[in-house]
Protein backbone atom coordinates (compact mmCIF):
# COMPACT_ATOMS: atom_id res chain seq x y z
CA UNK A 1 0.00 0.00 0.00
CA UNK A 2 1.11 3.48 -0.68
CA UNK A 3 -0.58 5.67 1.92
CA UNK A 4 1.17 8.47 3.73
CA UNK A 5 2.83 7.65 7.03
CA UNK A 6 0.59 10.23 8.66
CA UNK A 7 -2.47 8.10 7.87
CA UNK A 8 -1.46 4.80 9.36
CA UNK A 9 -1.50 3.24 12.78
CA UNK A 10 1.53 1.17 13.54
CA UNK A 11 2.30 -1.04 16.54
CA UNK A 12 5.88 -2.13 16.99
CA UNK A 13 6.67 -4.85 19.52
CA UNK A 14 4.02 -3.56 21.91
CA UNK A 15 3.48 -5.14 25.33
CA UNK A 16 1.02 -4.21 28.05
CA UNK A 17 0.87 -5.21 31.68
CA UNK A 18 -1.27 -3.86 34.51
CA UNK A 19 0.84 -3.21 37.58
CA UNK A 20 3.04 -6.19 38.36
CA UNK A 21 0.74 -8.69 36.63
CA UNK A 22 1.99 -10.76 33.70
CA UNK A 23 1.68 -9.09 30.31
CA UNK A 24 -1.85 -9.19 28.88
CA UNK A 25 -0.56 -8.16 25.47
CA UNK A 26 2.76 -9.37 24.12
CA UNK A 27 4.96 -8.56 21.15
CA UNK A 28 2.25 -6.95 19.05
CA UNK A 29 3.55 -5.67 15.74
CA UNK A 30 1.08 -4.72 13.06
CA UNK A 31 -0.08 -1.91 10.84
CA UNK A 32 -3.63 -0.68 10.36
CA UNK A 33 -4.05 0.79 6.91
CA UNK A 34 -6.36 3.72 6.35
CA UNK A 35 -9.76 2.85 5.01
CA UNK A 36 -9.50 -0.81 6.00
CA UNK A 37 -12.04 -2.82 7.96
CA UNK A 38 -10.66 -5.08 10.67
CA UNK A 39 -12.28 -7.64 12.90
CA UNK A 40 -10.47 -8.38 16.13
CA UNK A 41 -11.31 -11.83 17.42
CA UNK A 42 -10.15 -14.10 20.17
CA UNK A 43 -11.42 -15.96 23.18
CA UNK A 44 -12.50 -14.12 26.30
CA UNK A 45 -9.42 -12.87 28.14
CA UNK A 46 -7.30 -12.92 24.99
CA UNK A 47 -6.65 -9.19 25.35
CA UNK A 48 -9.11 -7.72 22.84
CA UNK A 49 -10.36 -4.97 25.13
CA UNK A 50 -6.80 -4.15 26.24
CA UNK A 51 -5.71 -3.80 22.63
CA UNK A 52 -8.71 -1.55 21.92
CA UNK A 53 -7.78 0.59 24.95
CA UNK A 54 -4.38 1.18 23.40
CA UNK A 55 -6.08 2.13 20.14
CA UNK A 56 -8.48 4.61 21.70
CA UNK A 57 -5.74 6.12 23.87
CA UNK A 58 -7.11 5.10 27.26
CA UNK A 59 -3.92 3.24 28.04
CA UNK A 60 -0.25 3.53 27.24
CA UNK A 61 1.73 0.39 26.47
CA UNK A 62 4.29 -0.93 28.94
CA UNK A 63 6.78 -1.35 26.13
CA UNK A 64 7.13 -0.97 22.41
CA UNK A 65 6.08 1.88 20.16
CA UNK A 66 2.74 3.02 18.77
CA UNK A 67 2.48 5.53 15.97
CA UNK A 68 -0.86 7.04 15.05
CA UNK A 69 -1.27 9.54 12.24
CA UNK A 70 2.37 10.46 12.23
CA UNK A 71 2.66 10.83 15.99
CA UNK A 72 4.40 8.66 18.53
CA UNK A 73 1.57 8.40 21.05
CA UNK A 74 3.93 7.45 23.89
CA UNK A 75 5.98 10.63 23.68
CA UNK A 76 3.19 12.90 22.44
CA UNK A 77 2.65 15.81 24.87
CA UNK A 78 -0.40 15.26 27.04
CA UNK A 79 -2.11 18.41 25.82
CA UNK A 80 -2.10 17.06 22.25
CA UNK A 81 -3.87 13.79 23.17
CA UNK A 82 -7.41 15.31 23.25
CA UNK A 83 -6.98 16.45 19.66
CA UNK A 84 -5.93 12.90 18.74
CA UNK A 85 -8.91 11.43 20.61
CA UNK A 86 -11.27 13.64 18.63
CA UNK A 87 -10.17 11.76 15.51
CA UNK A 88 -11.40 8.52 17.09
CA UNK A 89 -14.85 7.08 17.57
CA UNK A 90 -15.26 4.50 20.30
CA UNK A 91 -18.11 2.09 21.03
CA UNK A 92 -17.43 0.78 24.52
CA UNK A 93 -18.48 -2.72 25.46
CA UNK A 94 -20.46 -1.34 28.40
CA UNK A 95 -21.67 1.64 26.27
CA UNK A 96 -20.49 4.23 28.81
CA UNK A 97 -23.36 6.62 28.20
CA UNK A 98 -23.71 9.62 30.53
CA UNK A 99 -26.60 8.46 32.70
CA UNK A 100 -28.31 11.77 33.35
CA UNK A 101 -28.15 12.94 29.74
CA UNK A 102 -30.82 12.18 27.14
CA UNK A 103 -30.12 10.14 24.01
CA UNK A 104 -29.82 13.43 22.12
CA UNK A 105 -27.32 14.93 24.57
CA UNK A 106 -25.26 11.75 24.67
CA UNK A 107 -24.96 11.67 20.89
CA UNK A 108 -24.26 15.41 20.80
CA UNK A 109 -21.49 15.14 23.41
CA UNK A 110 -18.50 14.65 21.06
CA UNK A 111 -19.67 17.58 18.93
CA UNK A 112 -20.13 19.83 21.95
CA UNK A 113 -16.68 18.88 23.26
CA UNK A 114 -15.28 19.79 19.85
CA UNK A 115 -16.99 23.18 20.06
CA UNK A 116 -19.79 22.69 17.52
CA UNK A 117 -22.55 25.23 18.12
CA UNK A 118 -26.03 24.17 19.23
CA UNK A 119 -27.53 25.35 15.93
CA UNK A 120 -25.05 23.29 13.92
CA UNK A 121 -25.47 20.07 15.85
CA UNK A 122 -29.28 19.84 15.97
CA UNK A 123 -29.77 18.33 12.49
CA UNK A 124 -26.88 15.83 12.45
CA UNK A 125 -27.72 14.50 15.91
CA UNK A 126 -31.43 14.18 15.12
CA UNK A 127 -30.67 12.49 11.79
CA UNK A 128 -28.21 10.12 13.40
CA UNK A 129 -30.73 9.06 16.06
CA UNK A 130 -33.28 8.61 13.28
CA UNK A 131 -30.82 6.44 11.41
CA UNK A 132 -30.24 4.11 14.35
CA UNK A 133 -34.02 3.90 14.80
CA UNK A 134 -34.26 5.95 17.95
CA UNK A 135 -36.00 9.10 16.74
CA UNK A 136 -38.87 8.30 19.11
CA UNK A 137 -36.45 8.00 22.06
CA UNK A 138 -34.63 11.28 21.57
CA UNK A 139 -35.35 12.56 25.10
CA UNK A 140 -35.02 9.23 26.88
CA UNK A 141 -32.27 8.77 29.45
CA UNK A 142 -30.21 5.55 29.43
CA UNK A 143 -31.91 4.11 32.52
CA UNK A 144 -35.20 3.93 30.62
CA UNK A 145 -33.69 2.32 27.51
CA UNK A 146 -33.17 -1.33 26.68
CA UNK A 147 -29.63 -2.68 26.26
CA UNK A 148 -30.04 -2.61 22.48
CA UNK A 149 -31.23 0.98 22.52
CA UNK A 150 -28.30 2.04 24.70
CA UNK A 151 -25.93 0.28 22.35
CA UNK A 152 -27.36 2.14 19.37
CA UNK A 153 -26.98 5.45 21.20
CA UNK A 154 -23.37 4.49 21.95
CA UNK A 155 -22.77 3.71 18.28
CA UNK A 156 -24.43 6.94 17.16
CA UNK A 157 -22.18 8.86 19.55
CA UNK A 158 -19.08 7.09 18.20
CA UNK A 159 -19.77 7.85 14.55
CA UNK A 160 -21.42 11.30 14.77
CA UNK A 161 -18.10 13.11 14.38
CA UNK A 162 -17.03 11.03 11.37
CA UNK A 163 -13.90 9.65 13.00
CA UNK A 164 -10.70 8.66 11.21
CA UNK A 165 -10.59 5.49 13.29
CA UNK A 166 -13.66 3.76 14.67
CA UNK A 167 -13.01 1.28 17.46
CA UNK A 168 -15.96 -0.87 18.57
CA UNK A 169 -15.92 -3.43 21.36
CA UNK A 170 -18.62 -6.07 20.75
CA UNK A 171 -20.90 -3.47 19.17
CA UNK A 172 -23.58 -5.95 18.16
CA UNK A 173 -23.72 -7.91 21.39
CA UNK A 174 -27.05 -6.55 22.57
CA UNK A 175 -28.96 -6.07 19.34
CA UNK A 176 -31.06 -8.40 17.24
CA UNK A 177 -29.50 -9.86 14.07
CA UNK A 178 -31.37 -7.42 11.85
CA UNK A 179 -30.07 -4.40 13.77
CA UNK A 180 -26.59 -5.99 13.90
CA UNK A 181 -26.50 -6.10 10.10
CA UNK A 182 -27.79 -2.55 9.93
CA UNK A 183 -25.08 -1.34 12.27
CA UNK A 184 -22.43 -3.21 10.29
CA UNK A 185 -23.69 -1.42 7.17
CA UNK A 186 -23.24 1.86 9.01
CA UNK A 187 -19.66 0.91 9.83
CA UNK A 188 -19.09 -0.10 6.22
CA UNK A 189 -20.51 3.17 4.99
CA UNK A 190 -18.11 5.04 7.25
CA UNK A 191 -15.33 2.76 6.10
CA UNK A 192 -16.05 3.63 2.48
CA UNK A 193 -15.70 7.28 3.39
CA UNK A 194 -12.17 6.58 4.58
CA UNK A 195 -12.62 5.66 8.24
CA UNK A 196 -10.48 2.80 9.48
CA UNK A 197 -12.75 0.44 11.40
CA UNK A 198 -11.71 -2.04 14.10
CA UNK A 199 -14.52 -4.21 15.47
CA UNK A 200 -13.83 -6.63 18.32
CA UNK A 201 -16.30 -9.49 18.28
CA UNK A 202 -16.92 -13.06 19.36
CA UNK A 203 -19.45 -13.54 16.63
CA UNK A 204 -17.83 -15.51 13.79
CA UNK A 205 -20.94 -15.07 11.64
CA UNK A 206 -20.41 -11.36 11.71
CA UNK A 207 -17.00 -11.74 10.03
CA UNK A 208 -18.62 -13.08 6.92
CA UNK A 209 -20.96 -10.15 6.58
CA UNK A 210 -18.24 -7.70 5.57
CA UNK A 211 -16.62 -9.08 2.44
CA UNK A 212 -13.45 -7.01 2.34
CA UNK A 213 -12.65 -7.12 6.00
CA UNK A 214 -9.42 -8.38 7.58
CA UNK A 215 -9.10 -10.48 10.70
CA UNK A 216 -6.75 -10.02 13.63
CA UNK A 217 -6.90 -13.00 15.96
CA UNK A 218 -5.59 -12.59 19.48
CA UNK A 219 -4.56 -15.61 21.48
CA UNK A 220 -3.35 -15.12 25.06
CA UNK A 221 -2.18 -11.61 24.32
CA UNK A 222 -0.41 -12.38 21.07
CA UNK A 223 -1.56 -12.12 17.50
CA UNK A 224 -1.99 -15.73 16.43
CA UNK A 225 0.25 -15.10 13.46
CA UNK A 226 3.42 -13.83 15.13
CA UNK A 227 4.34 -11.74 12.10
CA UNK A 228 1.08 -9.88 12.49
CA UNK A 229 -0.29 -11.21 9.22
CA UNK A 230 -3.87 -10.25 8.57
CA UNK A 231 -6.24 -12.41 6.68
CA UNK A 232 -9.44 -11.87 4.88
CA UNK A 233 -12.17 -13.77 6.62
CA UNK A 234 -13.43 -16.93 4.99
CA UNK A 235 -16.03 -16.08 2.41
CA UNK A 236 -19.44 -17.60 2.95
CA UNK A 237 -19.29 -19.33 -0.42
CA UNK A 238 -15.52 -19.87 -0.51
CA UNK A 239 -13.33 -22.78 0.48
CA UNK A 240 -13.57 -21.91 4.14
CA UNK A 241 -10.16 -21.07 5.49
CA UNK A 242 -8.38 -19.82 2.42
CA UNK A 243 -6.01 -16.94 2.94
CA UNK A 244 -6.81 -14.41 0.30
CA UNK A 245 -4.20 -11.90 1.21
CA UNK A 246 -1.63 -11.28 3.85
CA UNK A 247 0.22 -8.13 4.65
CA UNK A 248 3.23 -8.26 6.82
CA UNK A 249 3.90 -5.43 9.15
CA UNK A 250 7.14 -3.60 8.64
CA UNK A 251 9.41 -1.65 10.90
CA UNK A 252 9.01 1.40 8.71
CA UNK A 253 7.30 3.70 11.18
Amino acid sequence: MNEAASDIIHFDNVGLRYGTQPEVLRDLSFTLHPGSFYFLTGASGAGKTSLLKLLYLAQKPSRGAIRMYGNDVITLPREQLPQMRRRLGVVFQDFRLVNHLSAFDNVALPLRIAGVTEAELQTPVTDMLDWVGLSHRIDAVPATMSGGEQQRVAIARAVIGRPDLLVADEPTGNVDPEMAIKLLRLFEALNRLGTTVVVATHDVHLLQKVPNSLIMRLDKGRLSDPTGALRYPPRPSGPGTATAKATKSGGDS
Partner: protein
Amino acid sequence: MKLPPLIGRSLNRGLAPLGGENAASLIPRARLTGPVPWVLAIMIALTVLATAGGLALSNLANSARSDLSGALTVQIVEADQELLAQQSEAAQRILTDNPAVQSLRAVPQAELDALLEPWLGTGNAVDSVPMPALIDVQLRDAADAQQIDQLQAALAEQIPNVRVDAQSDWLRPVYSALSALQYLAAVLVILLAATSAAAVWLAVRSSFAAHRETIEIVHLLGGRDDQIARIFQRSVAIDALIGGIIGLTAGLLGVMLIGSRFAGLDSGMVAGGGLGMLDWIAIAAIPFAAILIAMLTARLNVMAALRRMI
Protein backbone atom coordinates in the same frame (compact mmCIF):
# COMPACT_ATOMS: atom_id res chain seq x y z
CA MET B 1 -29.74 2.67 1.98
CA LYS B 2 -29.62 6.10 3.43
CA LEU B 3 -26.13 7.08 4.48
CA PRO B 4 -25.50 8.10 8.04
CA PRO B 5 -25.54 11.81 8.59
CA LEU B 6 -22.02 13.10 8.67
CA ILE B 7 -20.83 16.52 9.36
CA GLY B 8 -17.87 18.34 8.00
CA ARG B 9 -14.47 17.80 9.53
CA SER B 10 -14.09 21.49 9.99
CA LEU B 11 -16.80 21.29 12.63
CA ASN B 12 -15.57 18.38 14.68
CA ARG B 13 -12.00 19.63 14.62
CA GLY B 14 -13.13 22.84 16.27
CA LEU B 15 -11.19 24.15 19.21
CA ALA B 16 -13.92 26.16 20.90
CA PRO B 17 -14.20 25.29 24.56
CA LEU B 18 -17.09 23.40 26.01
CA GLY B 19 -18.76 26.06 28.05
CA GLY B 20 -21.94 27.73 29.15
CA GLU B 21 -25.10 25.68 29.18
CA ASN B 22 -23.41 22.65 27.67
CA ALA B 23 -20.86 22.50 30.42
CA ALA B 24 -23.49 22.95 33.10
CA SER B 25 -25.61 20.13 31.74
CA LEU B 26 -22.78 17.63 32.19
CA ILE B 27 -22.95 17.77 35.97
CA PRO B 28 -26.47 17.38 37.31
CA ARG B 29 -27.09 20.36 39.54
CA ALA B 30 -29.05 18.41 42.14
CA ARG B 31 -25.96 16.51 43.22
CA LEU B 32 -23.74 19.47 44.03
CA THR B 33 -26.54 21.40 45.65
CA GLY B 34 -26.18 19.21 48.67
CA PRO B 35 -24.46 20.31 51.85
CA VAL B 36 -21.82 22.45 50.10
CA PRO B 37 -23.69 25.79 50.05
CA TRP B 38 -24.74 25.32 53.67
CA VAL B 39 -21.28 24.38 54.90
CA LEU B 40 -19.93 27.41 53.07
CA ALA B 41 -22.70 29.65 54.44
CA ILE B 42 -21.82 28.69 58.02
CA MET B 43 -18.09 29.11 57.39
CA ILE B 44 -18.59 32.50 55.76
CA ALA B 45 -20.92 33.70 58.54
CA LEU B 46 -18.32 32.72 61.15
CA THR B 47 -15.52 34.30 59.12
CA VAL B 48 -17.54 37.52 58.80
CA LEU B 49 -18.10 37.62 62.57
CA ALA B 50 -14.45 36.90 63.36
CA THR B 51 -13.23 39.46 60.81
CA ALA B 52 -15.64 42.14 62.04
CA GLY B 53 -14.60 41.45 65.64
CA GLY B 54 -10.90 41.52 64.76
CA LEU B 55 -11.22 44.76 62.79
CA ALA B 56 -13.30 46.41 65.52
CA LEU B 57 -10.71 45.44 68.14
CA SER B 58 -7.94 46.71 65.91
CA ASN B 59 -9.75 50.04 65.42
CA LEU B 60 -10.39 50.29 69.14
CA ALA B 61 -6.74 49.72 70.00
CA ASN B 62 -5.52 52.14 67.32
CA SER B 63 -7.97 54.80 68.39
CA ALA B 64 -6.94 54.50 72.05
CA ARG B 65 -3.27 54.52 71.10
CA SER B 66 -3.50 57.60 68.92
CA ASP B 67 -5.46 59.46 71.60
CA LEU B 68 -2.82 58.74 74.19
CA SER B 69 0.37 58.24 72.28
CA GLY B 70 1.36 61.91 72.25
CA ALA B 71 0.06 62.66 75.72
CA LEU B 72 2.43 63.33 78.69
CA THR B 73 1.87 64.33 82.26
CA VAL B 74 4.38 66.64 83.96
CA GLN B 75 4.27 66.40 87.75
CA ILE B 76 6.05 68.87 90.06
CA VAL B 77 6.37 68.00 93.72
CA GLU B 78 7.14 70.92 96.04
CA ALA B 79 5.89 71.52 99.59
CA ASP B 80 6.27 75.27 99.37
CA GLN B 81 3.18 76.47 97.53
CA GLU B 82 4.75 79.74 96.37
CA LEU B 83 7.82 77.98 95.00
CA LEU B 84 5.55 75.37 93.43
CA ALA B 85 3.64 78.09 91.56
CA GLN B 86 6.91 79.61 90.30
CA GLN B 87 8.24 76.23 89.23
CA SER B 88 4.95 75.43 87.46
CA GLU B 89 5.17 78.68 85.50
CA ALA B 90 8.81 78.03 84.64
CA ALA B 91 7.92 74.53 83.48
CA GLN B 92 5.12 75.91 81.28
CA ARG B 93 7.56 78.38 79.70
CA ILE B 94 10.14 75.67 79.00
CA LEU B 95 7.45 73.42 77.53
CA THR B 96 5.94 76.18 75.39
CA ASP B 97 9.36 76.94 73.91
CA ASN B 98 9.98 73.29 73.09
CA PRO B 99 9.16 72.68 69.37
CA ALA B 100 7.95 69.13 70.04
CA VAL B 101 5.11 70.36 72.23
CA GLN B 102 1.81 71.03 70.50
CA SER B 103 -0.23 72.21 73.44
CA LEU B 104 -0.26 72.13 77.21
CA ARG B 105 -2.69 72.69 80.01
CA ALA B 106 -1.95 73.26 83.66
CA VAL B 107 -4.49 71.20 85.57
CA PRO B 108 -6.39 73.78 87.70
CA GLN B 109 -6.48 73.42 91.48
CA ALA B 110 -10.23 72.74 91.43
CA GLU B 111 -9.69 69.63 89.27
CA LEU B 112 -6.94 68.39 91.58
CA ASP B 113 -9.21 68.87 94.55
CA ALA B 114 -11.96 66.97 92.78
CA LEU B 115 -9.54 64.13 92.11
CA LEU B 116 -8.75 63.79 95.81
CA GLU B 117 -12.22 64.38 97.11
CA PRO B 118 -13.25 60.69 97.17
CA TRP B 119 -10.40 60.00 99.61
CA LEU B 120 -10.08 63.19 101.65
CA GLY B 121 -13.61 64.58 101.51
CA THR B 122 -14.50 68.21 100.91
CA GLY B 123 -13.28 71.13 102.96
CA ASN B 124 -10.09 72.13 104.64
CA ALA B 125 -8.42 68.78 104.55
CA VAL B 126 -7.56 69.28 100.88
CA ASP B 127 -5.97 72.66 101.56
CA SER B 128 -3.70 71.29 104.29
CA VAL B 129 -2.29 68.49 102.09
CA PRO B 130 0.59 69.61 99.81
CA MET B 131 -0.55 68.92 96.28
CA PRO B 132 1.77 68.47 93.27
CA ALA B 133 1.28 70.64 90.18
CA LEU B 134 0.13 68.72 87.13
CA ILE B 135 0.54 69.83 83.50
CA ASP B 136 -1.08 67.87 80.63
CA VAL B 137 1.17 68.06 77.56
CA GLN B 138 0.20 67.06 74.02
CA LEU B 139 3.17 66.43 71.73
CA ARG B 140 3.04 66.89 67.98
CA ASP B 141 4.01 63.23 67.40
CA ALA B 142 3.90 60.06 69.42
CA ALA B 143 6.09 60.25 72.47
CA ASP B 144 9.13 58.02 72.49
CA ALA B 145 11.38 57.29 75.44
CA GLN B 146 14.19 59.50 74.15
CA GLN B 147 11.89 62.52 73.81
CA ILE B 148 10.52 61.99 77.28
CA ASP B 149 14.07 61.78 78.68
CA GLN B 150 15.06 65.02 76.90
CA LEU B 151 12.03 66.87 78.27
CA GLN B 152 12.72 65.49 81.74
CA ALA B 153 16.36 66.69 81.53
CA ALA B 154 15.36 70.17 80.23
CA LEU B 155 12.84 70.64 83.03
CA ALA B 156 15.11 69.21 85.74
CA GLU B 157 17.72 71.94 85.09
CA GLN B 158 15.41 74.48 86.76
CA ILE B 159 12.95 72.27 88.64
CA PRO B 160 14.58 69.58 90.78
CA ASN B 161 11.48 67.55 91.68
CA VAL B 162 9.89 67.16 88.28
CA ARG B 163 8.65 63.95 86.73
CA VAL B 164 7.47 63.34 83.13
CA ASP B 165 5.19 60.31 82.44
CA ALA B 166 3.79 59.09 79.15
CA GLN B 167 0.08 58.46 79.61
CA SER B 168 0.23 55.45 77.34
CA ASP B 169 2.43 53.70 79.89
CA TRP B 170 -0.54 53.31 82.17
CA LEU B 171 -2.56 51.60 79.40
CA ARG B 172 0.18 49.24 78.27
CA PRO B 173 -1.48 46.15 79.82
CA VAL B 174 -4.75 47.09 78.07
CA TYR B 175 -2.97 47.38 74.71
CA SER B 176 -1.30 44.07 75.31
CA ALA B 177 -4.68 42.43 75.98
CA LEU B 178 -6.19 44.10 72.90
CA SER B 179 -3.27 42.91 70.77
CA ALA B 180 -3.79 39.37 72.01
CA LEU B 181 -7.46 39.57 71.02
CA GLN B 182 -6.48 40.92 67.60
CA TYR B 183 -4.11 38.01 67.04
CA LEU B 184 -6.83 35.63 68.22
CA ALA B 185 -9.28 37.08 65.69
CA ALA B 186 -6.65 36.86 62.92
CA VAL B 187 -5.90 33.21 63.78
CA LEU B 188 -9.63 32.47 63.88
CA VAL B 189 -10.12 34.00 60.43
CA ILE B 190 -7.19 32.00 59.02
CA LEU B 191 -8.44 28.76 60.60
CA LEU B 192 -11.97 29.32 59.32
CA ALA B 193 -10.67 30.09 55.83
CA ALA B 194 -8.60 26.89 55.94
CA THR B 195 -11.59 24.89 57.20
CA SER B 196 -13.80 26.34 54.47
CA ALA B 197 -11.21 25.43 51.86
CA ALA B 198 -10.99 21.92 53.33
CA ALA B 199 -14.80 21.56 53.29
CA VAL B 200 -14.93 22.63 49.65
CA TRP B 201 -12.02 20.33 48.87
CA LEU B 202 -13.84 17.33 50.36
CA ALA B 203 -17.15 18.25 48.71
CA VAL B 204 -15.50 18.59 45.31
CA ARG B 205 -13.65 15.32 45.79
CA SER B 206 -16.84 13.45 46.60
CA SER B 207 -18.58 15.10 43.68
CA PHE B 208 -15.65 14.11 41.48
CA ALA B 209 -15.92 10.51 42.66
CA ALA B 210 -19.65 10.51 41.88
CA HIS B 211 -18.96 11.90 38.40
CA ARG B 212 -15.77 10.04 37.68
CA GLU B 213 -17.49 7.99 35.00
CA THR B 214 -18.81 11.11 33.23
CA ILE B 215 -15.41 12.76 33.47
CA GLU B 216 -13.69 9.68 32.03
CA ILE B 217 -16.15 9.60 29.15
CA VAL B 218 -15.63 13.29 28.38
CA HIS B 219 -11.88 12.71 28.69
CA LEU B 220 -11.97 9.78 26.25
CA LEU B 221 -14.16 11.70 23.79
CA GLY B 222 -11.44 14.34 23.53
CA GLY B 223 -12.34 16.72 26.35
CA ARG B 224 -9.35 18.75 27.47
CA ASP B 225 -8.35 18.88 31.14
CA ASP B 226 -9.17 22.57 31.41
CA GLN B 227 -12.59 21.99 29.78
CA ILE B 228 -13.45 19.36 32.38
CA ALA B 229 -12.02 21.43 35.24
CA ARG B 230 -14.14 24.38 34.10
CA ILE B 231 -17.30 22.30 34.40
CA PHE B 232 -16.50 21.66 38.07
CA GLN B 233 -15.32 25.20 38.74
CA ARG B 234 -18.62 26.47 37.42
CA SER B 235 -20.68 24.11 39.55
CA VAL B 236 -18.66 24.88 42.66
CA ALA B 237 -18.76 28.63 41.99
CA ILE B 238 -22.57 28.58 41.84
CA ASP B 239 -22.71 26.66 45.13
CA ALA B 240 -20.19 29.00 46.74
CA LEU B 241 -22.14 32.03 45.54
CA ILE B 242 -25.35 30.73 47.13
CA GLY B 243 -23.45 29.89 50.34
CA GLY B 244 -21.71 33.26 50.24
CA ILE B 245 -24.92 35.26 50.02
CA ILE B 246 -26.54 33.32 52.86
CA GLY B 247 -23.37 33.41 55.00
CA LEU B 248 -22.71 37.11 54.45
CA THR B 249 -26.30 38.01 55.32
CA ALA B 250 -26.24 35.92 58.49
CA GLY B 251 -22.80 37.22 59.48
CA LEU B 252 -23.80 40.86 58.94
CA LEU B 253 -26.94 40.41 61.01
CA GLY B 254 -24.74 39.06 63.80
CA VAL B 255 -22.28 41.94 63.50
CA MET B 256 -25.08 44.52 63.59
CA LEU B 257 -26.68 42.87 66.60
CA ILE B 258 -23.41 42.89 68.54
CA GLY B 259 -22.67 46.43 67.32
CA SER B 260 -25.99 47.72 68.60
CA ARG B 261 -25.30 46.16 72.03
CA PHE B 262 -21.85 47.82 72.23
CA ALA B 263 -23.28 51.14 71.04
CA GLY B 264 -25.62 50.88 74.04
CA LEU B 265 -22.59 50.97 76.37
CA ASP B 266 -21.86 54.55 75.23
CA SER B 267 -18.41 54.24 76.78
CA GLY B 268 -15.38 56.25 75.73
CA MET B 269 -13.32 53.09 75.73
CA VAL B 270 -15.35 51.32 73.02
CA ALA B 271 -16.21 54.43 71.03
CA GLY B 272 -13.24 53.87 68.71
CA GLY B 273 -14.29 50.29 67.94
CA GLY B 274 -16.60 51.05 65.01
CA LEU B 275 -16.03 49.76 61.49
CA GLY B 276 -14.89 52.10 58.70
CA MET B 277 -15.67 51.98 55.00
CA LEU B 278 -12.51 49.94 54.26
CA ASP B 279 -13.49 47.45 56.96
CA TRP B 280 -16.93 46.96 55.43
CA ILE B 281 -15.33 46.48 52.01
CA ALA B 282 -13.01 43.84 53.51
CA ILE B 283 -15.99 42.05 55.07
CA ALA B 284 -17.96 42.20 51.82
CA ALA B 285 -14.94 40.68 50.05
CA ILE B 286 -15.07 37.52 52.21
CA PRO B 287 -17.68 35.67 50.09
CA PHE B 288 -15.74 36.52 46.92
CA ALA B 289 -12.57 35.18 48.50
CA ALA B 290 -14.53 32.03 49.42
CA ILE B 291 -15.74 31.65 45.82
CA LEU B 292 -12.18 32.05 44.56
CA ILE B 293 -10.86 29.50 47.05
CA ALA B 294 -13.67 27.11 46.09
CA MET B 295 -12.98 27.46 42.37
CA LEU B 296 -9.24 27.11 42.83
CA THR B 297 -9.71 24.04 45.02
CA ALA B 298 -12.05 22.52 42.45
CA ARG B 299 -9.61 23.20 39.66
CA LEU B 300 -6.56 21.79 41.46
CA ASN B 301 -8.51 18.72 42.55
CA VAL B 302 -9.93 17.93 39.13
CA MET B 303 -6.65 18.62 37.35
CA ALA B 304 -4.75 16.38 39.77
CA ALA B 305 -7.27 13.57 39.28
CA LEU B 306 -7.21 13.98 35.49
CA ARG B 307 -3.42 13.80 35.47
CA ARG B 308 -3.75 10.23 36.71
CA MET B 309 -5.53 9.37 33.43
CA ILE B 310 -3.37 9.35 30.31
